[in-house]
């Protein structure tokens, strides 16, 4: 567990603000102000520092300050009256998600996460054909060839290379790691080895990575390809890569679905996963889907164990019903199919609810500012800052225990959700 190193200094602090969930941070806390003083990154430094406890903790109804009791009653009223309520955003920890699902089940709501437009590509692939994947410690200790499809990685996961690729200590060697990127215009500087070796960049349009993967599958199977280039990449270049992949002892193919901004990205993810499966006929190679920001893995995990289904599940009929296209929060709001929205974002005050004409209640990190004031706003505490809790890391295996680093008057999402549920029971 995170420990107090000296008065006001916490050691081994897990960071809930990106999917890597590094837990080696040192954070100083002084009169409610936090500062990362060791092992920080661009994301964590900002996110811990911005969590000022001096921001308003008062809930609002239509912009006017109210008591929390009145605010939770107002949320219950909005949700209770709705025929097709939506609980979305879902930036919360395990306890928050447990409590929100309790509400969803009671009122027959639809649940969806703010990141699901991206990670659904992974889930659809998993549910259609499956995959061979690995986790961060395996990457750190084993990888000899790292192929990254369509992402610079570091802008979403700043310490990825520092912690898992160019790490000094590895159980099984690690000095001669090679990095390959697929994509165009990516910042690949982090892929340069400490000894100066530059990464290989397969210059291609990101929307055509699926074609590259398909061609590589043919080449590693020893099939002849008539085309001289694939997605504008010369075949010889791909042949070279295919050979390197086959010669890898423990290769890893990483992608961040959040960087696949094009339609039917699940087909690209699937091509990559099938390529990895094929490579395992003769060597070891694993996929590494990168995600976990804003608690997306957490929301999926809890929803899956409690209902059997991931995000985009409706409890409207009394039993869970999963539809990865129909129950998209964005789509439902766009088509005016939801008549109430409960929006949750406890890690990031910048993630405000999407535009909608439906009544909106927000459980948002304190300090959230709105272009359009929601009907109800209840500022909530940040997990791992104001209260303890758990979040899942990108690899979906490790749930980090988050620690309360300071006193806070703010309630957790779980607390507020429990209060809303109680109010719903009374109504």
């Amino acid at each position, binding site marked *: 567990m995170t420990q107090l190193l000296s008065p006001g200094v916490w050691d081994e602090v897990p960071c809930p603000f990106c999917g890597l969930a590094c837990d080696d941070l040192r954070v100083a806390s002084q009169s409610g102000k936090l500062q990362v003083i060791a092992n920080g990154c661009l994301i964590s430094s900002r996110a811990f520092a911005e969590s000022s406890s001096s921001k308003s903790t008062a809930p609002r109804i239509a912009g006017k300050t109210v008591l929390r009791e009145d605010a939770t009653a107002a949320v219950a009223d909005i949700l209770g009256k709705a025929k097709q309520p939506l609980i979305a955003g879902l930036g919360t920890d395990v306890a928050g998600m447990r409590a929100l699902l309790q509400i969803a089940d009671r009122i027959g709501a639809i649940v969806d996460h703010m990141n699901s437009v991206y990670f659904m590509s992974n889930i659809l692939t998993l549910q259609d054909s499956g995959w061979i994947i*690995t986790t961060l410690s395996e990457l750190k200790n084993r990888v000899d060839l790292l192929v990254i499809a369509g992402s610079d990685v570091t802008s979403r996961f700043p310490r990825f290379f520092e912690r*898992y690729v160019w790490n000094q200590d590895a159980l099984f060697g690690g000095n001669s790691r090679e990095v390959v990127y697929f994509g165009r215009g990516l910042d690949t500087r982090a892929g340069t080895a400490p000894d100066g070796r530059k990464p290989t960049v397969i210059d291609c349009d990101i929307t055509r990575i699926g074609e590259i993967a398909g061609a590589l599958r043919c080449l590693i199977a020893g099939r002849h390809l008539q085309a001289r280039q694939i997605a504008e990449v010369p075949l010889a270049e791909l042949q070279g890569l295919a050979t390197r992949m086959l010669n890898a002892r423990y290769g890893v193919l990483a992608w961040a679905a959040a960087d696949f901004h094009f339609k039917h990205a699940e087909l690209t993810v699937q091509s990559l996963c099938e390529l990895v499966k094929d490579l395992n006929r003769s060597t070891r190679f694993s996929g590494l889907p990168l995600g976990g920001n804003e608690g997306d893995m957490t929301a999926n995990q809890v929803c899956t164990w409690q209902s059997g289904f991931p995000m985009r599940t409706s409890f409207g009929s009394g039993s869970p019903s999963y539809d990865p296209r129909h129950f998209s929060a964005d789509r439902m709001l766009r088509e005016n199919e939801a008549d109430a929205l409960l929006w949750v974002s406890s890690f990031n005050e910048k993630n405000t609810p999407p535009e909608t004409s439906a009544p909106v209640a927000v459980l948002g990190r304190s300090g959230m500012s709105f272009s359009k004031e929601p009907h109800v706003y209840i500022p909530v505490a940040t997990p791992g800052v104001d209260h303890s809790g758990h979040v899942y890391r990108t690899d979906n295996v490790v749930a980090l225990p988050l620690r309360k680093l300071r006193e806070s008057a703010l309630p957790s999402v779980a607390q507020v959700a429990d209060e809303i549920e109680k109010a719903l029971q009374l109504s």
Partner: protein
Amino acid sequence: MLTKLKGGKVYDPANQVNGEVHDLFVRDGRIAAAPAHGERVDREYDVSGRIVMAGAIDLHTHIGGGKVNIARNLLPEDHRSDLVARTPLTRSGCGHAAPSTLTTGYRYAEMGYTACFEPAMLPVNARQAHMEMGDTPIVDKGGYALLGSDDFLLRMLAAKSDQKSINDYVAWTLSSSHCIGIKVVNPGGISAFKFNQRKLDVDEEHVYYHVTPRQIIKVLAQALSDLGVTHPLHVHGCNLGVPGNVETTLETIRVAEGLPMHLTHIQFHSYGTEGDRKFSSAAAQVAEAINQNKNISADVGQIMFGQTVTASGDSMAQHRNAPLGHPKKWVVMDIECDAGCGVVPFRYRDKNFVNALQWAIGLEIFLMVSDPWRICLTTDHPNGAPFTSYPHLIKLLMDKTYRNSVLATINPDAAAMSMLASLEREYSLYEIAIMTRAAPAKILGLDERGHLGLGAAADITVYSEASDREKMFVKPDYVFKDGELVAQNGRVIKITWGNTHVVKPEYDKRIEKQLKSYFERYQTMRMDNFKISDEEMQEFGHGNKLLSHACRKK
């Protein structure tokens, strides 16, 4: 609060009670003595003519943790065949092969089960398993921590660490992951698969560490014996599912050298290579070895026909078996220098030679192992079949006529190769009570569960006797959990959250110095964040109790 169950026929093998009619009294969640004359009974249930047993215990069921949630995520189409609606009392969810946590708890309780043990808890994923089991209502829970392919132990073995240091590491793992036992899965093989080794037999060397499964099994079995942990090493052996693996299984029994050992889902490890198809039953040899070696207990891992999903830590075997799966989608994972997993949906078909013979092999083992105290009733849920098929399995064991009628419908070549038709044995209610209650409690060291003696926890199941044993066992009349009536006529009527069973053997805390540095250098989380606190366990389990069982050092 004093409750009386009046006039039931009691089957309580731990106390040698075989169908005798007597009253049971329950006070404050425990089996109590008859009250003094004149003391008021608060609640009386007339159970005359009905069968009374302790609550059933499943000592090997995959109900929580990463691979189970992957299985759930993988199979939306299977869930849709068994959606579970919300009621004013219970939450919605799904059933069949990979049920939601809430449905799992309700259905186990409705079937008269009051304790379930998750057999493959990766220490690095133990938090998740405990969270999921925390959301599994009513039944007691517990887990076996998975060791044997973790790089820390393999490094210790390669460096020829002494047994005492290994004992400290094992005890530390049990404590930090809140488990009641240790499981080994394809010993060393999950790690070997990461080095592209595709097969590892008992005396084959791991390509990197040059350690053999034999060494791994021996040091772990020895550690548990030295630490005084009641549940012996829970062994998922090498070569799961491989024709001819009977030799491996017999050799694994010899590895124990008399130390207690539990062989799990033994059906999947009892295959020969006779016949035209080079696949045959070796149930007789395995049963004979179990009969001869009193240090060995086992559970069967019976398969049933139909769709299910296999979720295992054995990434090597699951990758090998993936092409046989249905539907064609599967997951294999390498996990955190700790272990791995593989999730492969399967549809066992009665007209398929191999599947039909697997079914027969499981039943042969049940019927040929003579001592019901050393064989437990499991389907390795959901790997052989979902746990909801237990009543059907009990019928197959108790009713020879019915069993033979099913045998007549399976693949005829498989039926012809099986000796099942010649096995006359029919399990008695007393024997069923042993293998589903008394034996698992004894094997796990649950002194207060699995029986109805004075002072025992009042986990009680009451059935109406019926000649159709499936019908009888599917919907008990009453199920009491720690003295509270939680299910009636096969429906949950009260939600409780059960207890978590753990052991906390003593160890030399200096092992943490080594571990702390190992975590900092090689793992991606710190040792102190890896360890699960008691407070977290409380939070996961809706405030349930952690029951720590004594270790009995010799």
